[in-house]
């Protein structure tokens, strides 16, 4: 049966490199080629940005069936498709859409010669900076010049010199000699973050990217320009000269900076994180993330990291081993029963950890369980006003209607003496209204955190936990999406993964068996938490799964969806 007969309302037949495929009407030629596994090299095209078609790297050969004269039958090829007559000049694949019966050749002599020509022109003034360029190893200029370049220069003139090492913002450095003038960065700042500070000046081979004289590129999304720059023209000050990209291992995880839960890649080498970059998820963060979330990982390198469990002795703390710390914590908590004990957990904890807190609260038979409400200023793009990544998880698992509402009564309870023991997990409550005066009324205070903070100082026992990059687990973001956190590096010193600490504590108190697999713990949790019903840890997947209808929308994604509808971007 001929494929041509299957043309339907919104599918069209397109021939790519001799093979017929069906793609959605309105698809860009470059995307159609991608679907046919024929990658077309490109610089300026980015699916989330408008397509100015200015780099000409994506030139391909295109043809259409000739329109038959009235009364004439279209000539058919062996597959039953109308014969294509090829156009003598190439077209760009990024900004043109497919049409019924269209033919695209990505490997023809014409297409190849076009690419080679464009590559040669792009490289005539190139400074050959690869040895000192942070983009080396993930640079499309390198990749395409291997595939389509000449290997030597025919250019005899002196190269044009352009500004190098230019400070264009607090987090970004520009090297104009490396720039291929694709304008991705300009379009990003105009279209996505409404901060139109980049532009081109001068003409011909002196054409350079430049920054507004009075306005630096300082918005909280500026580092995304570094990611989308196909070459090393824009580099990150934070990552500058720290590590070559080919040494790093990438771990798929999520950002813990706010309740958005942007999908990220954590790049690390030998137990040290070097950078975080956004990972595409069109339900959460598109292809972007904010700078503050991206640079969040420096917190893990703080000198204040706790590395050993500690117990108060007189006025100071002494280091103890884990079994002792756990035993003393369990003994201390079991001395009090019911509502004499309070637990302040954190929406920074994973679902699994929160579930273990719930088990602990059940053992202690206390109702005084809450998390803190930490709201800051969100923005109109991705950043969420809720500064905690897993508030929705805390709500679902700890059965909190409105997190933070019980905190005041816990504080009053401590002040009045009805609450005698407090377990604080993952928060520095000292800075949240529980001052020394309040906390010193307690008979027994245990805290767990990654940093030595004032709360830890007042605690009888301090349990050092693991940061978001040092553990696995799941979280539910602001829009109700269940997502996975993955372990990129090991926690420092003797600090441990929190789900192990909490389980040790639970086992010491209720005598139940230790669950060795996080997946098994997740399954146990999923059987009692309604919104997680039917999920397994491995079933969550890289891009997460929607579990709660929160009715919230993501401003940046709304606008992108609009532009997709208008046909401005591919999305």
């Amino acid at each position: 049966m001929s494929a041509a007969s299957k043309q339907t309302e919104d599918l069209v037949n397109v021939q790519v490199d001799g093979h017929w495929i069906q793609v959605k009407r309105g698809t860009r030629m470059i995307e159609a080629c991608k679907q046919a596994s024929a990658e077309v090299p490109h610089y300026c095209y980015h699916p989330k940005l408008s397509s100015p078609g200015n780099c000409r790297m994506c030139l391909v050969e295109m043809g259409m069936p000739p329109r038959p004269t009235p009364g004439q039958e279209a000539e058919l090829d062996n597959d039953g498709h109308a014969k294509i007559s090829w156009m003598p000049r190439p077209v760009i694949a990024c900004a043109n859409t497919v049409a019924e019966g269209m033919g695209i050749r990505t490997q023809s002599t014409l297409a190849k010669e076009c690419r080679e020509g464009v590559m040669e022109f792009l490289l005539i003034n190139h400074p050959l900076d690869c040895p000192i360029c942070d983009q080396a190893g993930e640079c499309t200029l390198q990749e395409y010049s291997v595939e389509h370049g000449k290997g030597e220069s025919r250019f005899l003139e002196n190269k044009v010199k352009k500004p190098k090492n230019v400070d264009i913002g607090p987090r970004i450095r520009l090297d104009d000699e490396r720039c291929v003038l694709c304008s991705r960065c300009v379009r990003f700042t105009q279209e996505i973050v409404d901060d139109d500070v980049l532009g081109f000046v001068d003409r011909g081979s002196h054409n350079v990217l430049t920054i507004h004289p009075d306005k630096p590129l300082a918005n909280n999304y500026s580092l995304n320009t570094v990611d989308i720059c196909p070459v090393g023209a824009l580099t990150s000050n934070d990552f500058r000269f720290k590590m070559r990209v080919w040494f790093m291992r990438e771990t798929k995880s999520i950002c813990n900076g706010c309740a958005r839960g942007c999908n990220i890649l954590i790049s690390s080498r030998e137990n040290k994180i070097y950078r975080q970059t956004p990972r595409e998820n069109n339900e959460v963060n598109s292809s972007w993330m904010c700078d503050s979330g991206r640079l969040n990982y420096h917190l893990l390198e703080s000198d204040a990291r706790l590395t050993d469990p500690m117990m108060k002795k007189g006025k100071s703390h002494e280091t103890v081993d884990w079994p002792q710390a756990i035993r003393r914590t369990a003994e201390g908590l079991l001395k009090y029963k019911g509502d004499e004990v309070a637990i302040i957990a954190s929406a920074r904890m994973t679902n699994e950890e929160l579930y273990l807190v719930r088990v602990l609260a059940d053992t202690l038979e206390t109702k005084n369980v809450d998390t803190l409400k930490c709201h800051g200023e969100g923005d109109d793009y991705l950043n969420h006003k809720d500064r905690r990544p897993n508030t929705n998880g805390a709500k679902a698992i700890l059965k909190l209607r409105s997190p933070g509402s019980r905190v005041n009564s816990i504080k009053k309870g401590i002040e009045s003496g009805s609450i005698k023991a407090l377990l604080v997990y993952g928060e520095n409550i000292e800075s949240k209204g529980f001052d020394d005066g309040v906390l010193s009324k307690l008979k027994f205070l245990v805290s767990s955190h990654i940093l030595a903070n004032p709360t830890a100082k007042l605690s009888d026992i301090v349990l050092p936990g693991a940061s978001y990059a040092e553990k696995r687990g799941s979280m539910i973001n602001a829009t109700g999406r269940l997502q996975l956190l993955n372990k990129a590096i090991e926690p420092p010193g003797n600090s441990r993964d929190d789900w192990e600490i909490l389980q040790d504590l639970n086992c010491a108190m209720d005598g139940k068996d230790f669950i060795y697999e996080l997946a098994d713990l997740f399954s146990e949790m999923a059987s009692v938490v309604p919104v997680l019903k039917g999920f397994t840890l491995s079933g969550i997947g890289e891009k997460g799964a929607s579990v709660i209808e929160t009715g919230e929308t993501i401003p940046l994604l709304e606008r992108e969806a609009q532009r997709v509808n208008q046909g401005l971007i591919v999305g």
Partner: protein
Amino acid sequence: MAVIVERPKLSILEKFYFPAIMKGLRITLGHAIRILRRKKKVTMQYPEEKWDNNLPEHYRGAPALVTDEHGRERCVSCQLCEFICPPRAITIIPEEIPPEDQWSKVEKRPREFEIDMIRCIYCGMCEEVCPEQAIFLRKDYAISGYTRDEMVHNKKKLYEIGGVREGLVNKWNTLK
């Protein structure tokens, strides 16, 4: 496909291995007697005597870093040698060249550059991969030390061994 190699057919004399043993003994004894009569010297009295003057041009000794004729460190800390080194003997910590430095236009240099000479197998891959012609295998071969730490050549030591190399890749000297 298996190839079957025929065993050579031995003659009677060859099967009877005594003559071969005698032949060997004769050579050994010959040398012994010649040495006793001080006709020919076979052993070199290392380390009093050394081969150094006879080393061929392509000799691969200890890898070392070199500076150019202006005293600029040629290495820009691209870490390609660290990547290619088969026993992973090289460890580099890069840094940015401060703006007040004479060579600040080069932008990048190694803050620390270490080659663990216990690991190094003198393969020369680092020299071959270096895009800046900054690392060379020199003729030093007697690398020794009392501790493992001593066997790690740091940046200072590497430049000491390496010295100056002129007129190779010189793009940084003309740039700007």
